[in-house]
């Protein structure tokens, strides 16, 4: 740089773009006696504005896909709409869950939400469900993460919770379950990829838990040890956990509880 200054040549100086502060090049002239930088022949790029960078198409496409995935997750976990909450907390939360592609069961005996996996979303007929409480939630395969979960945990009286296969359910969500510890009896966390053993270890706070499904949790180490410790800690708990060796469809169907079990236990308690 000093040599250039002495010779009074023009050279390319590295500077920062004014809009996005990216490094770029600007051509300028330095005279030896002034040692000041004078602008010389500036066009729009040389004046210091952003220029289009050469990026491969795959990089752009991957960035776009990441942003889109983040956007889908953010839209599934928006705050509850105040209009829906006018009808009551239960209805408002149920509408939120149905928009996030889950199914909700009210104490009037009906399930609302998508009928089968793959169907498009349906609306909740709010007039039918006013005055009833949410008994069961089937949020398997949805994109609910800890922010949406916190809104769901404001409900009391949820007995059955199915969050099988949700990619964003992690240890903080399982710690949030402590708010429904007085009513939760059936919990299904099969195949949740973000749950670790520290999260499963907090499930001892759910004192009324009767059935727990925790098969196929890839990040949980010593899962059978924790399952047996949970059975010691929580009275009336039965844990269903499938080992890797015996992993066939029929075994799964026999071991895991379904909604028919829910129907049976309800009539038994009544």
């Amino acid at each position, binding site marked *: 740089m000093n040599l250039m200054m002495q010779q009074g040549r*023009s050279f*390319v100086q590295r500077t*920062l773009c004014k809009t996005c*502060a*990216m*490094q770029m*090049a600007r*051509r300028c002239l330095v005279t030896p006696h002034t040692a000041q930088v004078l602008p010389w022949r500036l066009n729009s790029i040389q004046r210091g504005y952003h220029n289009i960078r*050469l*990026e*491969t198409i*795959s*990089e752009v496409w991957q960035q776009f896909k990441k942003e889109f995935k983040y956007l889908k997750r953010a839209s599934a976990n928006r705050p509850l709409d105040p209009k829906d909450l006018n009808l009551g907390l239960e209805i408002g939360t149920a509408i939120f869950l149905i928009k996030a592609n889950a199914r909700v069961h009210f104490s009037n005996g009906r399930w609302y939400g998508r009928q089968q996996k793959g169907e498009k979303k349906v609306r909740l007929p709010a007039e039918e469900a006013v005055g009833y409480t949410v008994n069961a939630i089937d949020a398997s395969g949805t994109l609910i993460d*800890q922010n949406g979960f916190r809104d769901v945990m404001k409900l009391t009286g949820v007995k059955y919770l199915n969050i099988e296969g949700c990619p964003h359910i992690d*240890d*903080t969500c399982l*710690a*949030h379950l*402590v*708010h429904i510890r007085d009513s939760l009896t059936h919990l299904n966390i099969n195949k949740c990829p973000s749950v*670790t*053993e*520290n*999260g499963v*270890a*907090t499930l*001892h*706070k759910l*004192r009324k838990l009767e059935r727990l499904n925790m098969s196929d949790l890839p990040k949980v180490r*010593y899962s059978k*040890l*924790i399952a047996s*410790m*949970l059975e*010691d*800690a929580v009275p009336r708990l039965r844990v269903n956990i499938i080992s890797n060796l015996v992993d066939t469809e029929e075994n799964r169907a026999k071991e895991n509880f379904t909604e028919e079990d829910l129907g049976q236990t309800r009539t038994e308690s009544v």
Partner: protein
Amino acid sequence: MLKLGRCVHLLARCTNQTSSFARTLASGGTDITKPFRQIRDGLSWTIPKDLQNSDRPPGEVDVLIIGGGAMGSSIAYFLKAARKAGVSVAVVERDSGYSMSSTVLSVGSIRQQFSTPENIYMSMYSAQFIKNVQEHLQVEGSDPPDLQFNDQGYLFLATKDKEHILHENHIIQKNCGAKVELMTQNQLKKRFPWMNTDNVTLGSYGLENEGWLDPWSLLKSFKEKAIDLGAKYYNAEVTGFNVVDDDAKPIDPTQFAPNGRRLNSVMVSMINSPEVVEVKSSYVVLTAGAWSGQLGKLLGIGTGPKEENLHMPIPVEPRKRYVYFFHCPEGPGLECPLLIDPSGSYVRREGFGGNYLCGKSPNECDEPSCEDLNVNYDFFDTEIWPNLAHRIPVMEKLKVKSAWAGYYDYNCLDQNAIIGSHPAYGNFLMATGFSGHGIQQSPAVGKLVSEKILAGEFQTIDVSKFGFERCITETPVLERCVI
């Protein structure tokens, strides 16, 4: 003709400069964030390129942080996250292996059960930060940080005479929004059948956001993210300060207004070398943990005149605390919270193999000496084990596997933090004296000190109660549950 030649010359230089970059891009899946990282480093356009990656700190820096533990790294991270290229941050840490740092030797627990609202808010903020640590501290291209946060809760036990303290604290905690529940003796007996509830009448159990984590991964995540954002860490020691009092005017010391005197530069001496670098900085933040009192003396805090508020030293000194790791095969298991006995001993589960960690703060008169970090195993046999065996009868049979000792940065005045600037020096900030609850407040303190530097005031939580002024007037802000 001449212009054409110059254009060709320019094009050639451009392609030469960008061609290697384009080549790396074309090979696919590479580091396209490298140019962005270069501009995040605020120092890259003030010091020459060949000196940028040296071990020697630069001659000028915006914020110099003394001490690179959890507090210093957290402040460096928050400063850089708020202003990417606009602030140059240098962290000076003399112990590159962190062998005596309180951070890595701590038990790493976090609780909201305090009696001062500011402490409760700081812990709540930190718990929120720790739960969302993947978003905040993930460095692109590396594994996401895993802090191993166990959300198990604290259980404070109280006898009949101390019951009212727990009740009053509970009201304060509920008002601040902490999720804590009180349990009577019968409820405790039902819930924790392995516990002996003879003389215990009340228990305070944390439901959420309380537990323990791995302090070493927290420190590592803060440090790596701060370095990724452009902060620089130097393995050196601070040995002196230079003060400028050209503008100093006499002021009324009771008003605690700065009198115009400022810290100009800091003498940083390199490890294993006689070299001493003078680093000019706008702000100096003291987060040296247990050694903050000593460093304050270098600046004259404690040996100066009363008219300039320099007569009171920083009341932080190291105190040694022991932690014992033992194995008890028939112990409480999964539901063991961090149990705090009325006698002061604490015990918590570690892992899933029947191992536990325990410790106790000794009485004032029995404080061990802080010359080294050797462990006294008799302390466990005489002070801790009888209490443990009384409270949890199965723990009569246990085997101590190992133990270690660490320093508390103990605030002799009131065992609470000192956060804020010194009244005599306008640009000297302190964040020290946490006395055992530093890890759980480190994200919040990082955010608050960065706000104080960048905006001039605390915006998230008002911690002016914890300023240095209370040390000068000797009005302690006492905390009623101290471990």
